[in-house]
Protein backbone atom coordinates (compact mmCIF):
# COMPACT_ATOMS: atom_id res chain seq x y z
CA UNK A 1 0.00 0.00 0.00
CA UNK A 2 1.25 3.43 -0.96
CA UNK A 3 0.97 6.41 1.32
CA UNK A 4 -0.07 8.60 -1.59
CA UNK A 5 -1.40 8.04 -5.08
CA UNK A 6 -1.38 10.98 -7.48
CA UNK A 7 -3.73 10.53 -10.43
CA UNK A 8 -2.61 12.65 -13.38
CA UNK A 9 0.77 13.48 -14.88
CA UNK A 10 0.30 17.10 -15.88
CA UNK A 11 1.81 20.16 -14.18
CA UNK A 12 -0.26 19.71 -11.00
CA UNK A 13 0.40 15.99 -10.63
CA UNK A 14 4.11 16.20 -11.35
CA UNK A 15 4.65 19.10 -8.97
CA UNK A 16 2.73 17.21 -6.29
CA UNK A 17 5.03 14.24 -6.90
CA UNK A 18 8.17 16.31 -6.31
CA UNK A 19 6.76 17.78 -3.09
CA UNK A 20 5.62 14.34 -1.92
CA UNK A 21 9.09 12.93 -2.62
CA UNK A 22 10.71 15.71 -0.62
CA UNK A 23 8.44 14.76 2.29
CA UNK A 24 9.55 11.13 1.85
CA UNK A 25 6.03 9.92 1.08
CA UNK A 26 5.91 6.54 -0.58
CA UNK A 27 4.11 7.72 -3.71
CA UNK A 28 2.64 6.37 -6.93
CA UNK A 29 2.00 8.74 -9.82
CA UNK A 30 -0.31 7.13 -12.34
CA UNK A 31 -1.33 8.71 -15.61
CA UNK A 32 -2.19 8.01 -19.21
CA UNK A 33 0.53 10.44 -20.27
CA UNK A 34 3.25 12.66 -18.91
CA UNK A 35 2.66 16.35 -19.47
CA UNK A 36 -1.13 16.44 -19.69
CA UNK A 37 -2.49 19.69 -21.01
CA UNK A 38 0.98 21.21 -20.67
CA UNK A 39 1.81 19.39 -23.89
CA UNK A 40 -0.96 20.95 -25.89
CA UNK A 41 0.39 24.48 -25.68
CA UNK A 42 2.91 25.16 -28.38
CA UNK A 43 4.61 28.11 -26.73
CA UNK A 44 4.32 29.21 -23.11
CA UNK A 45 5.15 32.82 -22.32
CA UNK A 46 3.89 33.08 -18.75
CA UNK A 47 5.62 30.37 -16.77
CA UNK A 48 7.96 32.21 -14.45
CA UNK A 49 11.64 31.69 -15.00
CA UNK A 50 11.23 31.38 -18.76
CA UNK A 51 10.42 34.28 -21.06
CA UNK A 52 9.15 31.62 -23.41
CA UNK A 53 9.40 27.87 -23.54
CA UNK A 54 7.70 25.12 -25.54
CA UNK A 55 5.00 23.21 -23.68
CA UNK A 56 6.66 19.94 -24.53
CA UNK A 57 10.05 21.15 -23.35
CA UNK A 58 8.69 22.47 -20.06
CA UNK A 59 6.91 19.19 -19.39
CA UNK A 60 10.12 17.29 -20.10
CA UNK A 61 11.85 19.39 -17.46
CA UNK A 62 9.05 18.61 -15.01
CA UNK A 63 9.44 14.90 -15.79
CA UNK A 64 13.21 15.01 -15.27
CA UNK A 65 12.62 16.61 -11.89
CA UNK A 66 10.12 13.93 -10.86
CA UNK A 67 12.60 11.26 -11.92
CA UNK A 68 15.15 12.63 -9.47
CA UNK A 69 13.29 10.63 -6.81
CA UNK A 70 13.04 7.09 -8.19
CA UNK A 71 12.90 5.41 -4.82
CA UNK A 72 10.07 7.49 -3.36
CA UNK A 73 7.98 8.15 -6.47
CA UNK A 74 6.96 5.26 -8.67
CA UNK A 75 5.70 6.25 -12.12
CA UNK A 76 3.04 4.27 -13.94
CA UNK A 77 2.50 5.93 -17.32
CA UNK A 78 0.20 4.72 -20.09
CA UNK A 79 -2.45 3.61 -17.63
CA UNK A 80 -5.92 5.07 -17.35
CA UNK A 81 -7.57 5.05 -13.95
CA UNK A 82 -11.19 4.00 -14.30
CA UNK A 83 -12.38 3.78 -10.73
CA UNK A 84 -11.57 5.42 -7.43
CA UNK A 85 -13.23 4.07 -4.32
CA UNK A 86 -12.99 4.37 -0.56
CA UNK A 87 -11.70 1.46 1.50
CA UNK A 88 -11.26 0.93 5.25
CA UNK A 89 -7.65 2.03 5.24
CA UNK A 90 -7.88 4.69 2.54
CA UNK A 91 -8.55 4.39 -1.18
CA UNK A 92 -8.32 1.95 -4.03
CA UNK A 93 -7.94 2.71 -7.71
CA UNK A 94 -8.54 0.39 -10.62
CA UNK A 95 -6.95 0.86 -14.05
CA UNK A 96 -8.28 0.13 -17.53
CA UNK A 97 -6.44 -3.20 -17.56
CA UNK A 98 -7.85 -4.29 -14.22
CA UNK A 99 -4.86 -3.55 -11.98
CA UNK A 100 -5.58 -2.20 -8.52
CA UNK A 101 -3.50 -0.02 -6.24
CA UNK A 102 -4.17 1.15 -2.70
CA UNK A 103 -3.12 4.25 -0.79
CA UNK A 104 -3.93 6.13 2.38
CA UNK A 105 -4.35 9.40 0.52
CA UNK A 106 -5.08 10.42 -3.08
CA UNK A 107 -4.49 13.60 -5.05
CA UNK A 108 -6.75 14.00 -8.06
CA UNK A 109 -4.95 15.97 -10.73
CA UNK A 110 -6.72 14.73 -13.81
CA UNK A 111 -7.02 18.06 -15.64
CA UNK A 112 -9.43 18.78 -18.43
CA UNK A 113 -10.19 17.28 -21.83
CA UNK A 114 -11.55 18.78 -25.03
CA UNK A 115 -15.31 19.24 -24.96
CA UNK A 116 -17.12 17.20 -27.57
CA UNK A 117 -19.96 18.34 -29.80
CA UNK A 118 -21.90 15.13 -29.09
CA UNK A 119 -23.35 14.95 -32.59
CA UNK A 120 -23.67 11.95 -34.93
CA UNK A 121 -20.48 11.24 -36.86
CA UNK A 122 -18.14 12.86 -34.35
CA UNK A 123 -16.79 9.71 -32.69
CA UNK A 124 -17.01 7.60 -35.84
CA UNK A 125 -14.86 10.01 -37.86
CA UNK A 126 -12.30 10.89 -35.20
CA UNK A 127 -8.85 10.74 -36.80
CA UNK A 128 -10.56 10.60 -40.17
CA UNK A 129 -11.18 14.31 -40.50
CA UNK A 130 -12.48 15.12 -37.02
CA UNK A 131 -9.76 16.53 -34.79
CA UNK A 132 -9.43 18.18 -31.39
CA UNK A 133 -5.82 19.22 -32.00
CA UNK A 134 -5.70 21.97 -34.61
CA UNK A 135 -1.98 22.61 -34.07
CA UNK A 136 -1.29 18.92 -34.74
CA UNK A 137 -3.48 18.16 -37.68
CA UNK A 138 -3.87 21.55 -39.38
CA UNK A 139 -1.19 20.96 -42.06
CA UNK A 140 -2.92 17.76 -43.23
CA UNK A 141 -5.74 19.89 -44.57
CA UNK A 142 -3.61 22.15 -46.77
CA UNK A 143 -5.52 22.93 -49.99
CA UNK A 144 -8.69 21.34 -48.57
CA UNK A 145 -11.89 22.70 -47.03
CA UNK A 146 -12.32 22.72 -43.27
CA UNK A 147 -14.93 23.71 -40.72
CA UNK A 148 -13.73 25.07 -37.41
CA UNK A 149 -16.31 24.82 -34.66
CA UNK A 150 -16.03 27.39 -31.88
CA UNK A 151 -15.83 31.16 -31.79
CA UNK A 152 -13.56 31.49 -28.76
CA UNK A 153 -9.82 32.09 -28.76
CA UNK A 154 -8.81 28.58 -29.75
CA UNK A 155 -11.32 28.42 -32.63
CA UNK A 156 -10.36 31.82 -34.01
CA UNK A 157 -6.65 31.05 -33.59
CA UNK A 158 -7.15 27.83 -35.56
CA UNK A 159 -9.01 29.83 -38.22
CA UNK A 160 -6.08 32.26 -38.43
CA UNK A 161 -3.70 29.36 -39.03
CA UNK A 162 -5.93 27.56 -41.51
CA UNK A 163 -6.85 30.50 -43.79
CA UNK A 164 -3.16 30.59 -44.73
CA UNK A 165 -3.11 27.02 -46.05
CA UNK A 166 -6.65 25.71 -46.61
CA UNK A 167 -8.71 26.19 -49.74
CA UNK A 168 -11.64 27.42 -47.68
CA UNK A 169 -12.37 27.80 -43.97
CA UNK A 170 -15.81 27.87 -42.37
CA UNK A 171 -15.87 29.21 -38.83
CA UNK A 172 -19.01 28.15 -36.99
CA UNK A 173 -20.05 29.53 -33.61
CA UNK A 174 -23.14 29.14 -31.44
CA UNK A 175 -22.87 32.80 -30.45
CA UNK A 176 -21.17 35.90 -31.79
CA UNK A 177 -17.39 35.39 -31.84
CA UNK A 178 -16.09 35.71 -28.30
CA UNK A 179 -12.36 35.57 -29.08
CA UNK A 180 -10.06 38.49 -28.26
CA UNK A 181 -10.54 41.40 -30.65
CA UNK A 182 -6.92 41.22 -31.79
CA UNK A 183 -7.44 37.66 -33.07
CA UNK A 184 -10.73 38.44 -34.82
CA UNK A 185 -9.24 41.51 -36.52
CA UNK A 186 -6.49 39.38 -38.02
CA UNK A 187 -9.14 37.43 -39.94
CA UNK A 188 -10.60 40.51 -41.58
CA UNK A 189 -8.78 40.27 -44.90
CA UNK A 190 -9.04 36.52 -45.37
CA UNK A 191 -10.70 35.90 -48.72
CA UNK A 192 -11.23 32.20 -48.13
CA UNK A 193 -13.21 32.45 -44.89
CA UNK A 194 -16.95 32.23 -44.23
CA UNK A 195 -18.18 32.86 -40.69
CA UNK A 196 -21.47 31.45 -39.44
CA UNK A 197 -22.37 32.90 -36.06
CA UNK A 198 -25.44 31.76 -34.12
CA UNK A 199 -25.32 28.39 -35.85
CA UNK A 200 -25.26 24.96 -34.30
CA UNK A 201 -23.70 21.77 -35.63
CA UNK A 202 -26.20 18.95 -36.15
CA UNK A 203 -24.10 16.23 -37.72
CA UNK A 204 -20.72 15.41 -39.19
CA UNK A 205 -21.21 13.50 -42.42
CA UNK A 206 -19.03 10.98 -44.16
CA UNK A 207 -18.50 7.27 -44.66
CA UNK A 208 -14.81 6.46 -44.28
CA UNK A 209 -13.76 10.09 -43.84
CA UNK A 210 -15.35 13.48 -43.27
CA UNK A 211 -17.32 14.73 -46.25
CA UNK A 212 -19.43 17.48 -44.76
CA UNK A 213 -20.95 19.16 -41.76
CA UNK A 214 -24.62 19.90 -41.29
CA UNK A 215 -25.42 23.14 -39.48
CA UNK A 216 -28.58 25.02 -38.48
CA UNK A 217 -29.21 28.73 -38.13
CA UNK A 218 -30.46 29.28 -34.56
CA UNK A 219 -32.75 32.12 -35.66
CA UNK A 220 -34.23 31.05 -39.00
CA UNK A 221 -33.90 27.32 -38.20
CA UNK A 222 -32.64 26.87 -41.75
CA UNK A 223 -30.32 23.89 -42.21
CA UNK A 224 -27.46 23.50 -44.64
CA UNK A 225 -24.64 21.06 -45.31
CA UNK A 226 -21.17 22.40 -46.02
CA UNK A 227 -18.83 20.15 -48.02
CA UNK A 228 -15.63 19.90 -45.96
CA UNK A 229 -12.73 17.46 -45.52
CA UNK A 230 -11.96 18.33 -41.93
CA UNK A 231 -13.82 19.39 -38.80
CA UNK A 232 -11.81 21.04 -36.02
CA UNK A 233 -13.67 21.00 -32.71
CA UNK A 234 -12.51 23.92 -30.56
CA UNK A 235 -15.35 24.44 -28.09
CA UNK A 236 -13.46 24.48 -24.83
CA UNK A 237 -12.58 21.94 -22.20
CA UNK A 238 -14.40 19.92 -19.57
CA UNK A 239 -12.98 18.81 -16.21
CA UNK A 240 -12.09 15.12 -15.92
CA UNK A 241 -14.00 14.76 -12.66
CA UNK A 242 -15.96 11.59 -13.45
CA UNK A 243 -13.48 9.51 -11.52
CA UNK A 244 -14.34 11.33 -8.30
CA UNK A 245 -18.10 11.30 -8.85
CA UNK A 246 -18.59 8.27 -6.62
CA UNK A 247 -17.06 10.16 -3.68
CA UNK A 248 -17.69 13.86 -4.34
CA UNK A 249 -20.39 15.58 -6.37
CA UNK A 250 -18.95 17.95 -8.97
CA UNK A 251 -19.92 21.64 -8.90
CA UNK A 252 -22.11 23.18 -11.62
CA UNK A 253 -19.08 23.49 -13.92
CA UNK A 254 -18.28 19.83 -13.47
CA UNK A 255 -15.21 20.60 -11.35
CA UNK A 256 -14.11 18.93 -8.12
CA UNK A 257 -14.83 21.47 -5.40
CA UNK A 258 -11.82 22.05 -3.13
CA UNK A 259 -11.10 24.45 -0.30
CA UNK A 260 -7.98 26.59 -0.04
CA UNK A 261 -6.15 23.59 1.42
CA UNK A 262 -7.02 21.43 -1.63
CA UNK A 263 -9.35 19.30 0.49
CA UNK A 264 -12.41 17.81 -1.20
CA UNK A 265 -14.39 17.14 1.95
CA UNK A 266 -13.54 13.43 1.85
CA UNK A 267 -10.71 12.92 4.37
CA UNK A 268 -7.54 11.95 2.53
CA UNK A 269 -8.82 12.94 -0.93
CA UNK A 270 -7.24 16.09 -2.33
CA UNK A 271 -7.59 17.87 -5.66
CA UNK A 272 -5.18 20.02 -7.66
CA UNK A 273 -5.02 21.80 -11.00
CA UNK A 274 -7.56 22.31 -13.75
CA UNK A 275 -9.95 19.59 -12.61
CA UNK A 276 -10.68 21.58 -9.45
CA UNK A 277 -12.80 24.63 -8.68
CA UNK A 278 -9.69 26.81 -8.26
CA UNK A 279 -10.01 29.71 -10.73
CA UNK A 280 -7.30 30.38 -13.30
CA UNK A 281 -6.51 27.43 -15.54
CA UNK A 282 -2.81 28.12 -15.92
CA UNK A 283 0.30 25.95 -15.71
CA UNK A 284 1.84 28.11 -13.02
CA UNK A 285 -1.34 27.89 -10.93
CA UNK A 286 -1.70 24.13 -11.45
CA UNK A 287 1.91 23.64 -10.36
CA UNK A 288 1.36 25.71 -7.22
CA UNK A 289 -1.83 23.85 -6.41
CA UNK A 290 -0.04 20.53 -6.86
CA UNK A 291 2.59 21.64 -4.35
CA UNK A 292 -0.09 22.71 -1.87
CA UNK A 293 -2.03 19.47 -2.26
CA UNK A 294 1.07 17.36 -1.58
CA UNK A 295 1.91 19.38 1.54
CA UNK A 296 -1.67 19.01 2.77
CA UNK A 297 -1.58 15.29 2.06
CA UNK A 298 1.62 15.09 4.08
CA UNK A 299 -0.07 16.84 7.04
CA UNK A 300 -3.01 14.49 6.74
CA UNK A 301 -0.79 11.39 6.71
CA UNK A 302 1.17 12.69 9.69
CA UNK A 303 -2.04 13.16 11.65
CA UNK A 304 -3.03 9.58 10.80
CA UNK A 305 0.29 8.33 12.19
CA UNK A 306 0.06 10.34 15.41
Amino acid sequence: MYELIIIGGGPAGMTAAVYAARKQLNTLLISSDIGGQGLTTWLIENYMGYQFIGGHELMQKFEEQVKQFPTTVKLEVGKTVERLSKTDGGFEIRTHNGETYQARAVILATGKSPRKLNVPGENELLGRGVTYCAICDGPIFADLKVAIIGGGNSGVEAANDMVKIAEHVYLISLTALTADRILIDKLENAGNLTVFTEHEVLEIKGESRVEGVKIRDLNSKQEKTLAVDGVFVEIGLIPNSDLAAELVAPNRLGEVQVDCGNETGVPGLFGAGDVTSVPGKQIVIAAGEGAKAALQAHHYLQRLRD
Partner: protein
Amino acid sequence: MVREVKLYTSPTCPYCKMAKKFLDDNGVKYQEFNIAEDKAAREEMKNKCSSLAVPTICFDDQVLVGFDEAKLKEKLGL
Protein backbone atom coordinates in the same frame (compact mmCIF):
# COMPACT_ATOMS: atom_id res chain seq x y z
CA MET B 1 13.21 -8.36 -36.31
CA VAL B 2 13.96 -5.54 -38.73
CA ARG B 3 10.85 -3.84 -39.94
CA GLU B 4 10.14 -0.66 -41.79
CA VAL B 5 8.52 1.87 -39.45
CA LYS B 6 7.18 5.09 -40.91
CA LEU B 7 6.30 8.01 -38.66
CA TYR B 8 4.25 10.86 -40.09
CA THR B 9 4.47 14.08 -38.09
CA SER B 10 3.74 17.80 -38.17
CA PRO B 11 6.19 20.29 -36.66
CA THR B 12 3.75 21.79 -34.13
CA CYS B 13 2.35 18.50 -32.85
CA PRO B 14 3.32 17.68 -29.25
CA TYR B 15 2.13 14.06 -29.51
CA CYS B 16 4.47 13.57 -32.47
CA LYS B 17 7.38 14.61 -30.27
CA MET B 18 6.24 12.12 -27.64
CA ALA B 19 6.05 9.37 -30.25
CA LYS B 20 9.56 10.19 -31.52
CA LYS B 21 10.98 10.20 -28.02
CA PHE B 22 9.31 6.87 -27.29
CA LEU B 23 10.70 5.26 -30.44
CA ASP B 24 14.16 6.73 -29.80
CA ASP B 25 14.17 5.60 -26.16
CA ASN B 26 13.22 2.09 -27.21
CA GLY B 27 15.79 1.90 -29.98
CA VAL B 28 13.20 1.56 -32.73
CA LYS B 29 14.52 2.70 -36.10
CA TYR B 30 12.05 4.69 -38.15
CA GLN B 31 11.74 7.07 -41.05
CA GLU B 32 10.09 10.39 -40.23
CA PHE B 33 7.97 12.34 -42.72
CA ASN B 34 6.96 15.94 -42.06
CA ILE B 35 3.54 16.15 -43.64
CA ALA B 36 3.49 19.95 -43.40
CA GLU B 37 6.37 20.19 -45.88
CA ASP B 38 6.28 16.91 -47.76
CA LYS B 39 3.17 16.78 -49.90
CA ALA B 40 3.86 13.30 -51.24
CA ALA B 41 4.15 11.96 -47.69
CA ARG B 42 0.93 13.73 -46.76
CA GLU B 43 -0.90 12.00 -49.60
CA GLU B 44 0.69 8.68 -48.72
CA MET B 45 -0.49 8.99 -45.12
CA LYS B 46 -4.00 9.88 -46.23
CA ASN B 47 -4.33 7.24 -48.90
CA LYS B 48 -2.16 4.30 -47.89
CA CYS B 49 -2.68 4.58 -44.13
CA SER B 50 -6.20 6.08 -44.38
CA SER B 51 -5.25 8.51 -41.65
CA LEU B 52 -6.10 12.18 -41.28
CA ALA B 53 -4.29 12.80 -38.01
CA VAL B 54 -0.74 12.88 -36.69
CA PRO B 55 1.25 11.18 -35.41
CA THR B 56 0.52 8.24 -37.66
CA ILE B 57 2.83 5.28 -37.26
CA CYS B 58 2.81 2.60 -39.94
CA PHE B 59 4.65 -0.72 -39.92
CA ASP B 60 3.88 -4.17 -41.30
CA ASP B 61 0.15 -3.94 -41.92
CA GLN B 62 -0.45 -1.87 -38.78
CA VAL B 63 -1.55 1.74 -38.65
CA LEU B 64 -1.50 3.49 -35.29
CA VAL B 65 -3.02 6.96 -35.18
CA GLY B 66 -2.18 9.16 -32.21
CA PHE B 67 0.37 8.44 -29.48
CA ASP B 68 -0.76 5.59 -27.27
CA GLU B 69 2.23 4.24 -25.40
CA ALA B 70 0.58 1.03 -24.23
CA LYS B 71 -0.72 0.17 -27.70
CA LEU B 72 2.62 0.99 -29.36
CA LYS B 73 4.45 -1.27 -26.92
CA GLU B 74 2.06 -4.08 -27.58
CA LYS B 75 2.04 -3.78 -31.37
CA LEU B 76 5.82 -3.35 -31.63
CA GLY B 77 6.36 -6.22 -29.19
CA LEU B 78 8.50 -4.15 -26.80
